[in-house]
């Protein structure tokens, strides 16, 4: 019994410590956004690595998800004689929900693992301490460029994912569901309103903060050499993905009623 109490006590302390640590780290990273020096080269490099590097993965995810989604719904809609509504459903589902979430999950899997592993390896080889010894703030030098890059590139990647998924739906509509091209695109545009687009853009920005904070924090706090870096990387992907799914629901639930008139 005493063992269980000690175990639970230790786990609670551990979680409280890391929640506090993550909050403190996030605050420091946010404050660094307005403090000099600005590392423009590093930021542009990260934008390339995160944006261009994830483009193929996001596009691939978008096209197959869009096609799968369109295929499933076109069959169901056909039974009601409502297959012309395929575009509307695709527009709502992809732009508002699936596009941002899938992009968030894909980028979390690819980018957050990379960020945590890179920072963790730097930490275990004392490179972070060396930076501090030379008067360089690792948050400004390492975390901030990644945060800015994610804030810029996540919405771009989400738009790419949305477009490719809608294109996938169009292919299914034309060749399998027998929906005319004009009907599909006019139906898509009908639901491509300000409300859906706003929600589709707020989410990737929120996800970019989650990915940057979680992956950088776990990298900076990784311990235990290569094994510790591996553990931190796994935790980074897991924590980012779960948080993205939870935050996605919270945004839909809270922002939806607020912009109801525009949906």
């Amino acid at each position, binding site marked *: 019994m005493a063992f269980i109490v000690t175990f639970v006590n230790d786990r609670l302390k551990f979680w409280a410590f890391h929640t506090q640590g993550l909050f403190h780290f996030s605050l420091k990273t946010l404050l660094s956004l307005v403090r000099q020096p600005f590392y423009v080269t590093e930021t542009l490099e990260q934008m390339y690595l995160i944006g261009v590097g994830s483009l193929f993965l996001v596009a691939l995810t978008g096209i197959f998800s869009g096609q799968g989604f369109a295929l499933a719904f076109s069959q169901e809609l056909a039974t009601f004689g409502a297959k012309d509504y395929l575009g509307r459903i695709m527009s709502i589902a992809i732009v508002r929900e699936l596009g941002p979430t899938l992009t968030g999950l894909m980028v979390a899997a690819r980018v957050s693992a990379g960020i945590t592993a890179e920072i963790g390896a730097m930490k275990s*080889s*004392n*490179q972070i*301490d*060396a930076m*501090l*010894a*030379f*008067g*360089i*703030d690792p948050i400004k030098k390492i975390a901030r460029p990644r945060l800015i890059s994610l804030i810029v590139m996540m919405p771009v990647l989400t738009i790419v994912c949305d477009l490719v998924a809608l294109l996938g739906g169009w292919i299914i509509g034309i060749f399998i569901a027998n929906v005319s091209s004009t009907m599909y695109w006019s139906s898509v545009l009908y639901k491509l309103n300000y409300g859906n687009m706003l929600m589709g853009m707020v989410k990737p920005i929120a996800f970019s903060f989650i990915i940057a904070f979680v992956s950088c924090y776990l990298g900076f706090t990784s311990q235990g050499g290569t094994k510790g870096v591996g553990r931190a990387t796994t935790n980074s992907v897991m924590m980012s993905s779960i948080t993205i799914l939870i935050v996605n629901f919270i945004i839909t639930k809270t922002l939806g009623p607020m912009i109801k008139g525009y949906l």
Partner: protein
Amino acid sequence: MIELRGVSFSYWDKPVLRNVSFRVHESEMVVIMGPSGSGKSTILRLILGLETPQAGQILIDGQNICAMRERDKQEVRKRIGMVFQDGALFDSMTVGENVGYYLLEHTHLSWQEISRRAAEMLGFVGMSPDEVGDKLPEELSGGMRRRVAIGRALLSTNPNVMLYDEPTTGLDPQMTENVLELITKLHEERQIASVIVTHQIADALEVADRFVVLHEGEVAFDGSLEELRASTDQRVMSFLGPFRESWARVARKKFIAL
């Protein structure tokens, strides 16, 4: 110059250092020795202000680094050069970029000027800039990495104190000799105070003016080579034990001279 006063430090609830006090004077070379896990490297991290002790003071030129804000610590660090274990070179940069890193970050010098100074520094630490300047750290041997790290620390901050964390660990005898020669040369030519952390007793005997022996986070000994040799402290004797038995056979210049 550097003074530790009653410093105690713990990682979580695990005590690492207990009431540690000693001084490093100007132009002095002090070696901190002790078995693995005795808290040697932690002392260097505390001196640099990378960690904050739970009790005690660390005075650098009379200023307590423990009570400073991060911004002020940076100013103090500019007077201290640190050579980390294995060099801690930035692995995504070339050797030349590593050596000129501080100038690149903190000055407005042209890249040509930084390259020139980095090449000069590589020459000072006994390396050919043409041969190694464009290589990545992973392409260098352990000894070469340490020398690049020493060059980087020197060019970075023009320090009046150098801290070395296990500078010869894992090196072959020839490389060990080269690195120790460089440390001695630096000490003699530039009159830079040095603190070396090592568990390699023979290397310590070769270069140090004074010795601090740590045992389970406490200072077990602080004194000269003669005093170390005469020490009857059980903790010191147990650390030096295997070495003392073979002292007569160890061909180390300073020791043989005694």
